[in-house]
């Protein structure tokens, strides 16, 4: 009778749903429950001894329910547990005589309720010790509470009944496992019980294999030009998944022959093979980890951390069994082939085929497939590049296994063993490497580590045709310099679209393989006179007109805190007296520019330069107005873009980013802000057009269309620049040496840089562009 009564609970709840929630929760944990909507019926169960504990759930706001509890408390105080919605009622209930530990307030709390019920039965289990308050007793109760809590959570976790089936299946497989055998031999029957617990623990912590449904391995991020030409792939693991039907049958057979000959017969684990491995172990007198099926290897690769423990081995088998139940053999093989590591950063068969043979997987020959099948076991040891002899032996072993398994005739076998091993590693070549670096740096700042693994498709702004034109123009310019005896110089070019700031072409140096330093985006160099337009822009904004008169006269300025004086001179060495603003810029007169700067003020000039897009620090000294403060070519070009349009141009290298799920995740659509009054823009354009028609930029007349720009040459011809624009593009060209030594005598911006600019602009398609008479703005 008592045994029956022991774990039985009668429940009464004023609201049925709450009652059901309590009842089901307790039942889930193995408590026998009855649920009544009539309090009398519940009370009778206690009185008759059918239940030991009465759980009452009340809505405290109803007087009549409180009264009901009062009634129960007087008769059944020591077998009453009350759940209620308002924690403040605890005191009221306690006054009625309900034990404080058996009042559970707040929201319905199934776990807490179970813990209290369990504690009730715990007290019932044994007579309370004489002194209840001893620390020992408290500790015991606490531990029991913890256990109850755990038990509840375990019960509530998804009870995948399938686990049990795997378990039984597994145990059968495990009987052949050496460690189990060893334990059994050692005769520890106790251990068997422990083992069962251990196994269960292993299985209860298995990963969710449904993940495979949405499984997408790390994928390379691909960069494309604006016109969809692949520029580069960024990856940690070189990988391109292929469907199984693009993998030739003989290649699949090679893998099966060497890794898992009974693949199509077993159900995830291969007892025969385990037995075989065991036998080998016993003979060798040691413990190796052999005998993994392809399915097990896949489990390991995708779900488990690389460690050699028993736990992992068991999990690996359990997952393998689960995978086989859920997925077809073909799908598992496909996942395996796309997941395996082949060395040389190549993950998956497709990447391996490309890396070792420079071809896609569907064109692999028998011998090639066999070599690839040889690799996953030990990619370095069997690498045809590092250990050709071992690689060949292992490949031939694969072929031999294929023959043994009936996949090959002896003729095919002989032929394949005669094939050569690959000798060169096929790297994927990049186009526009400097630009790719530039984008990568930007992307890394935005996406961090995810970049190389998340398979983004990145459409860049690069225009492949313009990029080719830029590279050709630089080559031609270098050849011309060489013909004049100038060698060892570097050059850079950047072209931005005026309407969007899109970087359409970028060349960061003459030879990426030699130096990856990007002279278009990273190099800080003095712009020389190419800085002057910002001085004149500041002047126009202060009310000067292009035909205002200024003085081209000697001027002496104290620099270095008055310890030195600076007397800017003109390139020709002569001073021209009174000249117009336009003349001064067109002829690039230094003295006139400094005089003008003295009128306009350094602060305004520097402010103007920053406003149009110069980010680098401009030192607040007068030599800065002649371009002594270093800037990058890219920012200079962007600033000229503002001169051309009146709007602030931000260089943009990416057009769109699409993630693996084909969603556009980045799509900059900001309109450039207008920052200059149109009158100032008109004035600057007029003057920069005059530089080309009458000044230092005359070489650009060869283009026979209106272009605008400014030369720049720094002291001793260390830097030669031309920055200019037409109606669509702003383009900057720089020539110089990394050592900052002079380029060569007379190698000014007009002579060294401008021809490259002109050559590039010649290639820019002019359709749709306004072809106006030269010189007219």
């Amino acid at each position, binding site marked *: 009778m008592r045994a029956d009564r022991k774990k039985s609970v009668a429940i009464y709840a004023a609201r049925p749903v709450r009652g059901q929630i309590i009842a*089901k929760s307790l039942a889930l944990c193995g408590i026998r429950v009855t649920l009544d909507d009539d309090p009398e019926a519940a009370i009778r169960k206690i009185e008759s001894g059918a239940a030991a504990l009465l759980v009452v759930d009340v809505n405290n706001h109803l007087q009549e329910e409180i009264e009901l509890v009062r009634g129960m408390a007087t008769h059944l105080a020591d077998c009453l547990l009350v759940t209620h919605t308002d924690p403040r009622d605890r005191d009221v209930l306690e006054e009625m005589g309900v034990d404080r530990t058996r009042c559970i307030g707040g929201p319905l709390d199934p776990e807490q309720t179970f813990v209290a019920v369990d504690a009730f039965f715990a007290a019932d289990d044994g007579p309370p010790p004489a002194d209840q308050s001893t620390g020992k007793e408290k500790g015991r109760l606490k531990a029991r509470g913890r256990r109850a809590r755990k038990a509840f959570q375990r019960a509530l976790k998804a009870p995948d009944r399938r686990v049990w089936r795997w378990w039984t299946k597994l145990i059968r497989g495990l009987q052949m496992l050496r460690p189990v055998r060893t334990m059994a031999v050692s005769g520890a029957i106790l251990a068997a019980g422990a083992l069962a617990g251990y196994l269960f623990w292993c299985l209860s912590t298995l990963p969710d294999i449904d993940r495979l449904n949405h499984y997408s391995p790390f994928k390379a991020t691909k960069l494309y030009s604006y016109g969809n030409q692949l520029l580069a792939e960024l990856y940690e693991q070189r990988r391109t998944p292929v469907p199984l039907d693009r993998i030739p049958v003989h290649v699949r057979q090679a893998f099966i022959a060497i890794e898992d000959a009974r693949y199509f017969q077993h159900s995830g684990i291969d007892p025969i093979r385990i037995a075989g491995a065991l036998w080998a172990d016993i003979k060798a007198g040691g413990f190796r980890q052999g005998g993994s099926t392809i399915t097990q290897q896949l489990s390991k690769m995708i779900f488990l951390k690389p460690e050699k423990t028993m736990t992992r081995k068991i999990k690996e088998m359990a997952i393998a069994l689960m995978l086989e139940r859920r997925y077809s053999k073909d799908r598992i093989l496909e996942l395996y082939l796309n997941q395996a590591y082949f060395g040389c950063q190549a993950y998956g068969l497709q990447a391996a085929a490309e890396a070792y043979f420079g071809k896609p997987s569907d064109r692999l020959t028998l011998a090639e497939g066999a070599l690839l099948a040889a690799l996953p076991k030990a990619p370095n040891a069997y690498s045809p590049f590092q250990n050709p002899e071992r690689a060949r032996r292992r490949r031939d072993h694969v072929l031999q296994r294929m023959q043994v398994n009936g996949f090959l005739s002896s003729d095919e076998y002989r032929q394949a063993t005669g094939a050569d091993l690959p000798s060169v590693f096929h790297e994927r070549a990049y186009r526009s490497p400097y630009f790719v670096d530039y984008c990568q740096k930007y992307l890394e700042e935005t996406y961090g580590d995810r970049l190389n693994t998340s398979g983004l498709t990145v459409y860049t702004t690069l225009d492949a045709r313009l990029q080719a034109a830029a590279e050709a123009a630089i080559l031609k310019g270098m050849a011309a310099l060489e013909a004049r005896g100038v060698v060892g110089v570097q050059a850079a070019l950047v072209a931005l679209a005026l309407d969007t700031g899109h970087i359409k072409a970028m060349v960061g140096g003459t030879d990426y393989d030699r130096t990856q330093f990007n002279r278009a985006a990273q190099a800080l160099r003095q712009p020389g006179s190419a800085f002057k337009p910002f001085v004149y822009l500041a002047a126009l904004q202060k009310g000067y007109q292009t035909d205002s008169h200024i003085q081209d006269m000697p001027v002496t300025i104290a620099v270095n805190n008055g310890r030195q004086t600076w007397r800017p001179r003109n390139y020709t060495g002569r001073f021209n007296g009174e000249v117009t603003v336009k003349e001064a810029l067109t002829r690039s007169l230094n003295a006139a520019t400094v005089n003008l700067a003295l009128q306009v003020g350094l602060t305004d000039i520097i402010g103007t330069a920053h406003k149009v897009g110069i980010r680098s620090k401009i030192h607040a000294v007068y030599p800065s107005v002649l371009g002594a403060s270093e800037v990058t070519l890219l920012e200079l070009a962007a600033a000229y873009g503002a001169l051309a349009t009146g709007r602030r141009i931000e260089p943009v290298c990416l057009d769109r980013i699409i993630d693996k799920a*084909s969603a556009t995740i980045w799509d900059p659509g900001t309109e450039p802000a207008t920052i200059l009054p149109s009158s100032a823009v008109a004035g600057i354009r007029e003057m920069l057009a005059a530089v080309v028609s009458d000044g230092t930029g005359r070489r650009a007349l060869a283009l026979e269309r209106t272009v605008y720009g400014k030369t720049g040459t720094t002291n001793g011809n260390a830097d030669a620049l031309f920055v200019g624009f037409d109606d669509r593009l702003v383009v900057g060209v720089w020539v110089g040496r990394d050592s900052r030594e002079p380029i060569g005598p007379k190698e000014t911006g007009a002579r060294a840089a401008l021809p490259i600019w002109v050559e590039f602009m010649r290639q820019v398609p002019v359709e749709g562009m306004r072809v106006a008479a030269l010189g007219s703005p």
Partner: protein
Amino acid sequence: MAPGSMTTRRKTARSSGGGGPSIGLDIGTANIVAYRNGQSEKGTQMEANAFFTVPSMPNTRKILEDKAVRFFEKDERLHILGNAAEEFANILGGTTRRPMEDGLVNLKEDDGIQVIQAILDPMVPEPAQKGQPLWFSVPGDPLDRNGAVLFNESIFKTYLKGRGYTPRPINEAMAVVVSELSDQHATGIGISMGGGMCNICFSYLSIPAVTYSIQKGGDFIDQTVGRSVGEPATKIKAIKEQELDLSVAPRNNIEHGLHAAYDDLFASLAESLARVLRGSDNVPRLNQALPIVLSGGTVLPPGSRERFAACLGEVDLPVRVAKVVQARNPLYATAKGAYMMAVAEDES
């Protein structure tokens, strides 16, 4: 209804003892689904819950009969039923009429009840044994409109009784939980976003602890977008069903409208969920995080799961969410849940 006593089993179709094969019925605003045989979903029928009338002429009648189209005649008009109604409306350039609106029988449609029954008749054959239980879905009470669904429920009960069944109602969203979360103790939140409403059920250990509905769904999306871009709702509906992808940026006005309407629906759903769950005494304190299952035709566009999950992130729920998943077959999930109830009952 007593799903509290239900036991979920992984078994599927089975015709036991005297009863015929089990059927699960979902009578929705847009579609009526009769689910049979859980293994392959073969034998499951789905009919549009719609009709289209044409004048009764001997000729027309003959064509319909030849084509085996289902219809009935009333007041000298032929009422073409179900999927055929939509085909004819398309061919003849009209719009179908609906016996139900916002999830409930539309009392403004005079012939509504008769139409639904005519569509249901062939889907629900007379039972092999009289009194065989038949589970059918009923919507939850719309927020602020308590009791509105009772009339609805009683109409179908009467009809099913008349056909010889013992009708058993199950909440539409609860049926989704049963169908999709049966191996997780039927614990989680089921949401069915249909044509006329969204039904929500918080289920704990297969107890439908909190159920409610909001009267917004696919039709609401079609109508609001149609109004805002000045196109007929039928056109919007077609575009929505065939092209909408919520995971990519909208490409035109209609798509912009659809995105906005979805966002609005999802946001109000998430907001109501937080409010209703917070306000309920039936939501227990739980340590584990719960799955949310989305079903119903309205969740079919790609990206809807992610969007809804994002909306959930904006509200403060009293339970933790483990994951938001889509039902295996969103159009069938409710009927399948009803079917599983029948199978479970059959076995116990």
